[in-house]
């Protein structure tokens, strides 16, 4: 996804300072997926600040009663420098890692088989599969339109076996069903067909839909063990964000002036720096000769659960907020003029970062609406009344309210939980005891 994230970087370990670095992108079996953890101190502090006191004050209740989800206000200013720091997504790195994982697939000597890749929302699973299909010349079969699913999507299934025997890529299995009494037939027929596949098929599936299939239909029992893109821990997050940014940018924390990302040269030696458990007020353990780097990325990676799409969106939001902050003149004097013609970008400390937050106890309508969006991998507005037990007018009102609070947004005609709000929404779903994904 980064500008300089070529195949070699993503696919193979590199040597820096004598220490082997793990590849930035890895596609691993689901049971090897490991979420990054945040520093315990920050967890407690944030738990107290955003959880305990907020709930004790009843702030959520007041907001919910007013019909407004709880969202921290933050200016949305897209400074040009933000575009230099966060270029458009490029999924070639993860796709290369997936190609490596599929090196021995399909086996022309063996019977046709299925490979399944599962990933969380905004995790780039579909994009990764389309990239691989494009690179290898495999045929991509998109899901049928949602309004055709209750009627059985006649003819769509045949597309999967039409044409030559080459592998077929079905990048979004989550779009092949509806949570409607007539919406499960297609996925069941698909399951029957893939019990003995006619052509090799690479399937991508959203983690929430995968969880629903597992509970409701028992699909994972016949599907092969899924693979997934490994979560980005804080070291990989640092490397990725540094690599995608314009090399002439330096990212500083606004309260102390310390670097948030290591400069490109230091990135090479990141493995030798040794990352102690710092906090966003202080430094991580580091080489005395290198500039101190804050623990910002440790919090970012933990908050985003290692999800690259969420990391990217939150990072961008942090930069937008930072671009509106006043920088202390004394600090500028202390840091001096950038020696090598670089530009400075400022970020607030992590704990002061305003991010869209769903109220801890949202109205039932909002929570089921958001849960439906998650288990379907997003839905068009006209399909919402089909899957939800709510009149369309109420749904429309809920949708506009959540959209105004940056909780949901329209992605190519489908309403989805935004990447920045996703961690907060997932937490609320867990608190309400609703079905969760494994990521």
């Amino acid at each position, binding site marked *: 996804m980064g500008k300089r994230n070529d195949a070699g970087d993503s696919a193979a370990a590199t040597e820096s300072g004598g220490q082997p670095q793990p590849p930035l992108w890895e596609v691993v079996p689901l049971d090897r997926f490991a979420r990054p953890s945040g520093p315990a101190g920050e967890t407690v502090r944030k738990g107290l600040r955003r959880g305990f006191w907020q709930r004790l004050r009843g702030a959520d209740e007041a907001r919910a009663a007013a019909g407004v989800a709880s969202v921290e206000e933050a200016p949305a200013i897209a400074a040009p420098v933000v575009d230099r720091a966060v270029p458009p997504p490029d999924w070639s790195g993860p796709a290369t890692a997936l190609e490596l994982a599929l090196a021995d697939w399909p086996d022309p000597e063996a019977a046709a088989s299925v490979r399944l890749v599962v990933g969380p929302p905004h995790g780039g699973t579909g994009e990764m599969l389309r990239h691989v299909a494009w690179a290898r010349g495999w045929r991509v079969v998109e899901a049928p339109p949602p309004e055709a699913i209750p009627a059985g999507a006649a003819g769509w299934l045949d597309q999967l076996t039409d044409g030559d025997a080459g592998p077929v890529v079905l990048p979004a299995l989550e779009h092949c069903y509806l949570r409607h009494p007539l919406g499960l037939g297609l996925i069941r027929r698909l399951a029957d067909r893939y019990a003995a596949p006619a052509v090799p098929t690479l399937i991508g599936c959203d983690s929430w839909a995968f969880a629903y299939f597992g509970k*409701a239909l028992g699909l994972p029992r016949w599907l092969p063990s899924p693979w997934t893109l490994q979560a980005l821990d804080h070291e990989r997050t640092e490397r990725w964000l540094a690599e995608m940014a314009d090399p002439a940018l330096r990212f500083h924390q606004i309260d102390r002036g310390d670097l948030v990302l290591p400069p490109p040269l230091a990135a090479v030696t990141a493995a030798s720096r040794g990352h102690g458990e710092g906090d966003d007020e202080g430094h991580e353990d580091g080489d005395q000769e290198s500039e101190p780097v804050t623990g910002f990325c440790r919090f970012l990676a933990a908050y985003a659960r290692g999800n690259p799409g969420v990391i990217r969106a939150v990072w961008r939001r942090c930069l937008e907020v930072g671009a509106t902050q006043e920088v202390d003149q004394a600090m500028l004097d202390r840091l001096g003029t950038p020696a090598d013609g670089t530009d400075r970008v400022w970020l607030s400390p992590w704990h002061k970062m305003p991010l869209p937050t769903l109220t801890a106890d949202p109205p039932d309508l909002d929570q089921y609406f958001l849960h439906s969006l998650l288990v379907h991998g997003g839905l068009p507005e006209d399909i919402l009344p089909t899957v939800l037990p709510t009149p369309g007018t109420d749904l429309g009102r809920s949708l506009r309210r959540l959209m105004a609070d940056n909780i949901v947004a329209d992605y190519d005609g489908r309403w989805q939980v935004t990447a920045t709000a996703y961690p907060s929404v997932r937490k609320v779903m867990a608190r309400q005891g609703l079905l969760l994904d494994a990521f």
Partner: protein
Amino acid sequence: MDDAEQTLVRIFNELGWREAAEIAAIVIVAWALTTAVQRGLPWLTERFHRAKRHRILPFVPVLKMVILVGALAITLSIVIRPTVENMVTILGASAIAIGFAFRDYLSGVVAGVVAVFERPHRPGDWVRIGDAYGEVTKEGLRGLEMVTPDDTRVLIPHSKLWDTAIYNANAGSRELMCVVRFFVDPRHDAAAVRSALYDAALTSPYVQLELPITVVLWEEPWGTHYRVKAYPVDARQQFQFISDVTVRGKAALAALGVAPAVPSVSVATAEPLP
């Protein structure tokens, strides 16, 4: 001082202003603690972990009982010289006197104590006692309070425990089974209808997927009777869940072209008046 006076002196401590202040303080603290438990615990569970409220709320009556027994014991130790002989004498005498005067009230209190240990109902449970069905919101000393689905508060004395059946739908858990009925014309493909009604429950956003969904059916003289049994995520959503499964089930049946049953009503001819 005669014998009776001497006996009373042996039993009771001398009570002065200080003792009276101590007793008043105990009453106030016990009342404050009881109120805090009664109101504070449900309030906190709503705010912090709604999914676990059914595990936490049953502790309310137990804690209240502990507070009351503790307060009573401390108060008695101030008023009475705490020897075995004195305790037996005073408790025996007071039990007879109070027993006659407040028999019904005490029956309720004793039933309340039994209810704390037997747990036929707990705060958060959905129970039917007599004609009333609703969620238990409060367990008092003498009775319980429930709120019906029509938002009516019902107070039921604990003494009902002695002679009335208590139907508890969830018994301390968050989920309760809901039964959705469908009455269908008998001329249909029963396997297809059963599968469609199963999917109607399976696709409801309210359904608890961790628990089983069952569809049972049998023939009646007027048609086929289906019962879909499933659990909503939260017992408080039982009526929304039933409504949603009904709507989904009717849509699925309509898509299958299955007609609803029409009960054959036989109306007896009224006998002619003399």
